[in-house]
């Protein structure tokens, strides 16, 4: 194949990819540009570009729209849940990968069952469980089930990862008289760092975006997370597009930024989870 022809093919393929990627990107850009326009501007021409940078929309959504509170609620849910899921899954995965214990196989199958049942299906019993525990309207109501639902997939991925660690290292540490907890924290934990990072990002994204649980389990406005706050905004301020868009941007920018920074681990995690060794 001659040089210029290869170059022409590269340019046209890249052009095609660029054109197609507009479908993915333009709607998001529109949210960002609209979030910087004033209300009269939007009413005059809904699809136009901003004439100036109208940052007041953000401060209005942040303070008057209470998005600061919702943002903090989302963080209060995400951080302990992700940390808890990883801690509990690491313990379980460690046991599954390196030890034998009674009922190991049965427990593992019970855990696999959890991967096939999506959280939404359990919303009815969860509602009455939280009602019974007096946790409705508390952030615990969405932390606890997500903790439980994050465990199966995380344990599975970590188990595969730990089982594939070089056995020599583990055996050597044991010979040196390393107890099981020390082995976990001094040897297995540092070696599993890359798998843990991938899981942090995946879990962060799922929990940050979770919608059904807070819709059903939280009615108190002050305990809303970003997705439910935004959906309430969608209903109430149907005409305040400028504020709606600023709110939308506040809720998606953190995930988009984290995704762009960690996209390599994130995509690796997704494809490993799907193609995995199950």
């Amino acid at each position, binding site marked *: 194949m001659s040089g210029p022809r290869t170059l022409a*093919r*590269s340019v046209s*393929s*890249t052009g*095609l*990819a660029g054109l*197609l*990627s507009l479908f*993915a*990107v333009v*709607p*998001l850009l*529109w*949210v960002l540009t609209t979030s910087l326009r004033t209300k009269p501007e939007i009413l005059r021409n*809904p*699809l136009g570009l901003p004439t100036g940078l109208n940052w007041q929309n953000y401060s209005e959504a942040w303070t008057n729209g209470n998005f600061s509170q919702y943002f903090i609620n989302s963080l209060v849910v995400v951080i302990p849940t992700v940390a808890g899921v990883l801690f509990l*899954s690491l*313990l*379980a995965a460690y046991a599954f990968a390196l030890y034998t214990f009674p009922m190991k196989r049965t*427990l593992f199958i019970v*855990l696999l069952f959890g991967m*096939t*049942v999506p959280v*939404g*299906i*359990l*919303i*009815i*019993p*969860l*509602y*009455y*469980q939280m009602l019974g525990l007096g946790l409705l309207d508390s952030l615990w109501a969405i932390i*606890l*089930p997500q903790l*439980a*639902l994050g*465990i199966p997939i995380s344990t599975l991925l970590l188990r595969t990862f730990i089982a594939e660690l070089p056995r020599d290292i583990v055996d050597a540490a044991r010979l040196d008289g390393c107890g099981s907890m020390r082995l976990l924290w001094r040897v297995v934990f540092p070696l599993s760092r890359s798998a843990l990072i991938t899981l942090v990002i995946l879990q962060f994204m799922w929990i*940050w*975006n979770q919608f059904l649980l807070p*819709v*059903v389990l939280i009615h108190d406005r002050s305990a809303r997370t*970003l*997705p439910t706050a*935004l*959906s309430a905004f*969608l209903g109430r301020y149907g005409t305040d597009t400028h504020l709606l*868009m600023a709110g*939308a941007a506040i809720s*998606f920018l953190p*995930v988009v930024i984290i*995704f*762009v920074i960690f*996209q390599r681990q994130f*995509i*690796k995690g*997704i*494809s490993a989870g*799907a*193609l995995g060794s199950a």
Partner: protein
Amino acid sequence: MPAFAVYAAFFLWPTWQMVRLSFFHWDGVTVGTGAGVENYTRMAADPLFATALTNTALWTAAAIVLPVIVGLGLAILLSRAPIFGTTLFRTLFFLPQVLSSVVVAVLWRWIYNPSFGALNTTLEALGLGFLAQGWLGSTSLALPALFLAWSWTHYGFVMVVFMAAIDDIDETYFDAAAVDGANMWQQIRHVLVPAIRGPMTTVVLITAIAAFQVFDLVYLLTNGGPARSTSVLAHFMFEAAFHFRKVGYGATLGVALMVMILAISLILIRVRRGFEEEAT
């Protein structure tokens, strides 16, 4: 093990409760009464259940076609075509997947807005103004319109899985095919597609499971309407329990949904094992 304690308390326990509730009539407040299998016979005869089941089945059938083909096409384009900035494009194409359903709903409500939405405006600009309409308000178009929005957030997953699978194919197969005079299409058909059959089953079934439990966009954009034309199983279950206060019946729908999803998963595991045996 602590992981199992949490898992049992907030996953296994509610699952068991749901199965138990499905054998009761309960409004969620007063004492429930035993119902035997009445909820199940009622479900079998319920025309609203039939509507929701049909819509869910249609959605699932379309889901294993449209996002899968778009994702496969993009994966081939990004992995096999000589492109500058593959990683950049992969990131861009994947972006819709990381958005929360509410952001997606905000976006597509704007796209479908009858008076100033992007879709109608574009149609008018192209001289196709006669096609412009209230997409989400039409009983025949609302379901496909929702499905398109959902597909927009799912092809990214398909794409990255296929890209990983395509990268695993031994390059010499393509070279051998090229030496034999196979053009690009023939290489894709005879080398690439057979090589990713295993991942393809996985992708199809994961997509099917996601499609089967679709809820968020329906709830946010149409709430099952107009005239129940976008009613799907997960949404019907939610309605039954929290709007009509038929908690036992809602739980029955939940059990049915769980059994169907479990069936899809078992097929996934079976088929995947078949491919693995074939490969070894």
